[in-house]
């Protein structure tokens, strides 16, 4: 099966034209990066660009190679092949200390023997700046992350969220052109994490430098990013804006990884896709095809539209998720659907459901387990 990048029109579009920037504003161009640890390939043929001022998220499961890619950009790992250009300069041969890139580490990596302000001033001190300038810039940076009151504390005396802010200030005070963030929020608890997501995003808009953010959390990626680069087993699965990647997943893996979905394996013949008892018109060549239908695009029959495809099914269970309920429904032909409806709708145990043909998005099969079949 062909999963090589660049064959998908959406991916190409997104790579060369991020939504907010013209294509020539690329700050970082990663081309054909490959890396193996021993005989195990961890990255294969990665090409990706980051625009000036863009918030790009590298999203992937653990073991997908996302941290390795970040470490190659920072210079902590050498790539086996490929190039990284930043503002026209090839970074590959430069040691980390010569790259105008700073990193926020997963465990913050604050120096335990230095105070908060000494930590933040570290990069400026090794660059031999004057005491007065270091002081001004450190104060500025600490004010920016609202940590001015803790300037003289040791890192061990402040909370995880505060250490996070200090790590951010320590990186930003050097005015890098690109900030790399390696799962910086993963050690924080849920509510603090949501606050920090907002804060980090607005900070990035404010200072306008490019962020490359690594996470395994698809919700985090959706909330924060201008674009998401989804990495799967060392290869780029799709690069697109959160909205695009959600509404037009290129592959069945993307569709499943980002949000919930229903994957329908259908056969296309003469412009009609058939899956079990369902059929709908498509504009595809004959042969097998996979379609993704988001749970919220399946409705109960009361608000059906004209191009609706309907099916009857038994409600297996109904889980309360606040504003919505998530239903598991078994259609008469045995297919299991996940359906998201407005909360509190009383449904009889067997009901009629509909979705429109335009919400069944054709995706490339990533050979992943998909629609469950019962019996």
């Amino acid at each position, binding site marked *: 099966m062909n999963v090589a990048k660049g064959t998908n029109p959406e991916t190409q579009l997104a790579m060369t034209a991020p939504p907010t920037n013209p294509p020539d504003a690329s700050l970082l161009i990663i081309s054909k990066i490959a890396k193996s640890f021993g005989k195990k390939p961890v990255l294969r043929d990665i090409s990706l660009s980051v625009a000036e001022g863009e918030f790009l998220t590298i999203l992937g499961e653990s073991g997908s190679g996302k941290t390795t890619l970040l470490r190659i950009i*920072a*210079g*902590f790992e050498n790539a086996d092949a490929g190039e990284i250009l930043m503002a026209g300069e090839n970074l590959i041969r430069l*040691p*980390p*200390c*010569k790259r105008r*890139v*700073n*990193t926020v*580490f*997963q*465990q913050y*990596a*604050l*120096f*335990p*023997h230095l105070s908060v302000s000494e930590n933040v001033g*570290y*990069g400026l*001190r*090794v*660059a031999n700046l004057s005491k007065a300038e270091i002081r001004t810039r450190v104060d500025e940076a600490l004010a920016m992350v609202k940590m001015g009151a803790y300037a003289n504390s*040791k890192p*061990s005396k402040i909370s995880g969220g505060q250490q996070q802010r200090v790590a951010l200030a*320590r*990186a930003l005070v*050097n005015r890098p052109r690109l900030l790399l963030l390696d799962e910086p929020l993963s050690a924080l608890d849920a509510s603090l994490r949501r606050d920090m997501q907002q804060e980090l995003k607005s900070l990035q808009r404010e200072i306008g430098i490019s962020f490359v953010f690594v996470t395994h959390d698809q919700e985090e990626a959706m909330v924060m990013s201008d674009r998401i680069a989804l990495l799967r087993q060392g290869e780029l699965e799709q690069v697109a804006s959160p909205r695009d990647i959600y509404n037009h997943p290129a592959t069945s893996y993307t569709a499943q990884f980002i949000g919930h979905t229903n994957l329908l394996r259908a056969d296309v013949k003469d412009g009609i896709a058939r899956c079990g008892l369902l059929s709908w018109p498509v504009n595809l060549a004959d042969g097998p095809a996979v379609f993704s239908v988001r749970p919220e695009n399946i409705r109960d029959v009361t608000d059906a539209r004209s191009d609706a495809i309907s099916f009857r099914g038994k409600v297996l269970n109904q889980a309360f998720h606040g504003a919505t309920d998530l239903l598991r429904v078994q259609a008469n032909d045995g297919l299991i659907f996940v359906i998201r409806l407005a909360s509190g709708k009383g449904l009889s145990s067997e009901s009629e459901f509909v979705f429109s043909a335009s919400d069944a998005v054709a995706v490339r099969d990533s050979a992943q387990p998909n629609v469950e079949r019962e019996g």
Partner: protein
Amino acid sequence: MFSRAYKVAITVPPLLWVIALLLLPYALLLCYSFWSVSAQQEIIHAWNLDNYRQLFRVHVYLQTLFRSMWIAARVMIFSLLLGYPLAYFLSFHAGRRKDFLYQLVIIPLWVSYLVRAYAWKTILGSDGVLNTLLQYVHLTRHPAEFLLYSPFAVVLTLTHIYTPFAILPIFASLEHIPRNLIEASHDLGASSWQTFLRVVLPLSLPGVLAGATFAFVLSLGDFLAPLLLGGPSGIMISNIVVSLFGAAYNWPLGAAISLCMLVLILGLLFLSESLEKKWAFR
């Protein structure tokens, strides 16, 4: 939570051990240091401070104590100078050979102290390996006499013997430095040298202090190396204690010197521990 019998069973043996083998001997030593010896070589059990007065009045005791401290200080410095680079290499650059090289550091500790001291005697003696070599290459015409039976020989031997004791705590403290701190330092623009001076060295200071304490304290109390290799000019304080408890038969004075040494070393250990606490950053 634990039964009474269990508590008794686990506390009594160590308690007996401490009382019989530590507290009683120290108490006895303390008593002896306030007694004296008659002309007929009998212990007089009358309390007085004569031994302590003598210790500070007779020149040779303090002089030997200071010489011992000076020898111990040199051993400490050389052990650190030799041990730190090796520990650093082991921790950061030895790669897959780390365990093997670590064992090489440990193995000399299994070899008898006496064997190692005698080895230096054969190397440094006037018919020794070193002198033979020097004459063979015509660097000297006669055997160099200063090599053996000198403070130099003592410092050399003790450095050889106690350097592993400096390496091990330094290595342990280097191993405990999270590697992402070093990456963070490079990321912030620091060179390898700056990273060493600003991050690695300060974070390894507790280990350096522990290593320095080991080397100094162990050397200060040593008596075999000066006995075998020191000659008259390389006598250390422990040699005096040994002779006072032996041939000189003046246990009370020997006890007084021993107690002074004990207080000195406890003071050093206390100082080292409080500094180590101050420098431990977590």
